[in-house]
């Protein structure tokens, strides 16, 4: 579908532009302004130039050390939850029942954690994990495993990761399920006739169909885990020590806790810049994938409906059916 060039379309976009600019550009200007200054309270500001940025990127200073450490922890956290949630989400999507009321029931239960306010998610896991009153903590300790997320850094990490898996795997699963549902039954029949193994069906039919939604899932999960704040804050408060202090928690500590506006603003800008770069990479990959798909479809109109070589005989079969 070719789009027509029409500059008047700006009038349709204007409301969105104004609303988002009001909430995004104005505050960002304040942040830029603060990031160049130092304050000693009483609304007195002093010019500091790029001082905060220098300090921020130098691990030997207090600010830089804290920032880089929390950044490292955050990246590690994002990678771990992606490594767990994406495969698990695919497996869960493949395990969905096919017919009947169980489908709706599974969907509703899957979506449930997504609609729980984030601090309540934290509360749920706090109550669930505590060694004295929580089912999980109590059971683990009764089994002889010494588990206490308040005092042990490893346990705190396990709890935070388990919580995120509990909270967000459903999103990946639902996205994959939507991708799987769009596969016509004929593909599977064709694969069956070809005697394709379960693994071949997954690799040649299901995975290519899930490509696009998986990309969305990875993007959303990476971004949201990279700016995670509320859930770990409620459960561990960033502790024990600093072991679960992620970038957002550090930022809020500096901004609203110590009211160190200059440092917080500089941190915000660098944080935002990282997110912008990652977002841009994903966006480019996604649009390129879209263009490629389109180009492929135009080159060979049947290519879209023919995911892999294994299935070609089936297409012939289908054509014959059509003739008959």
């Amino acid at each position, binding site marked *: 579908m070719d*789009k027509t*060039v029409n500059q008047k*379309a*700006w009038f*349709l*976009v204007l*409301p*969105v*532009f104004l*609303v988002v600019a009001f*909430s995004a550009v104005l*505050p960002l200007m*304040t942040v830029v302004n603060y990031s160049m200054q130092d304050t000693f309270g009483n609304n007195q500001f002093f010019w500091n130039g790029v001082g905060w940025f220098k300090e921020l990127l130098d691990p030997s200073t207090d600010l830089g050390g804290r920032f880089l450490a929390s950044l490292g922890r955050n990246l590690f956290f994002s990678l771990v939850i992606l490594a767990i949630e994406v495969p698990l989400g695919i*497996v869960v999507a*493949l*395990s*969905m*029942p096919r017919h009947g009321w169980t489908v*709706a029931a*599974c*969907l*509703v*239960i899957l*979506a449930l954690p*997504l*609609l*729980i306010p*984030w601090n*309540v998610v934290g*509360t*749920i896991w706090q*109550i*669930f994990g505590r060694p*004295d*009153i929580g089912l999980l903590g*109590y059971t683990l300790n009764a089994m002889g495993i010494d588990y206490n997320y308040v005092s042990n850094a490893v346990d705190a990490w396990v709890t935070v990761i388990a919580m995120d898996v*509990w909270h967000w795997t459903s*999103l990946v699963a*639902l996205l994959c399920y939507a*991708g799987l*549902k769009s596969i016509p039954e004929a593909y*599977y029949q064709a694969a069956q006739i070809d005697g394709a193994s379960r693994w071949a*069906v997954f690799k040649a039919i*299901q995975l290519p169909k899930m490509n*696009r*939604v998986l990309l*969305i899932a990875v993007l959303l999960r990476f*971004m949201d885990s990279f*700016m995670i704040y*509320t859930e770990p804050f409620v459960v561990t408060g960033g502790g024990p020590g600093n072991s679960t202090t992620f970038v957002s*928690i550090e*930022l*809020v500590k500096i901004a*609203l806790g110590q009211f160190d506006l200059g440092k*917080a603003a500089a941190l*915000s800008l660098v944080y*935002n810049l990282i997110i912008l770069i990652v*977002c*841009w990479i994903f*966006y480019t990959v996604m649009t390129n994938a879209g263009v490629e798909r389109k180009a492929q479809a135009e080159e060979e109109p049947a290519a879209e409906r023919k995911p892999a070589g294994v299935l070609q005989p089936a297409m012939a079969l289908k054509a014959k059916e059509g003739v008959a």
Partner: protein
Amino acid sequence: MHSIPGRRVIMALFLIFLLLPIYWLVNMSFKTNAEIVSTMTLWPHTPTLQHYRRIFTDESWYSGYINSLEYVVLNTIISISVALPAAYAFSRYRFLGDKHLFFWLLSNRMAPAAVYALPFFNLYSAIGLFDTPWAVALAHCIFNVPLAVWILEGFVSGVPREIDETAFLDGYSFPRFFIKILVPLIASGIGVAAFFCFMFSWVELLLARTLTSVHAKPIAAIMTRTVSAAGMDWGLLAAAGVLTIIPGALVIWFVRNYIASGFALGRV
């Protein structure tokens, strides 16, 4: 054929994993605090409704739910109404800077709320909206409007162009075409977008807490009050938590048939 071996077992295990922590919260909300602290019981032995009674009779508690719903509904209405025309423009026309604008919008969806907490506080205090539902509703627009544009763009693109052209040939003006023809055609898309706006506004806490103090305090912020000198009031905390799950569960029930395609944002 397209299911994997042992799928029933996997599904059952995963659902148990999802439901167990929620069950524990519900379980705890019906226990007395003495029972919670003193013994480990798998179900309430002396079930009580005292925590729920307290929430429904104490205004400082139940007003939190009203405040939360107020800004969530406001935000959903604002987001959808500004996003609809934009989604149409992005789907149908090419104009100066369209791709950059789209990316800029998306990048705002990804911006961390922690970055905006402090500047929002300054901004909304300066214009006198601090501690009103409007402040939170507008602040949540920063991630909900881009998302709504993104979802609706997918659905508008699913409507064949010929329909627009026919309508214009029949003498429909643009606003009339928009309301009479386009909106009914993408009604399910609007439903999906509204669901997502509701969802992300309902679950967000950091901005909602920063932008309110007394009159518009959301329930999620009020919950943190259960820490008192006498120790944690676990039962009350659990009951408040259970009540925050209910609106979400209701909304899911209504959209259950659209959940799967909705989560793919109309782009499978």
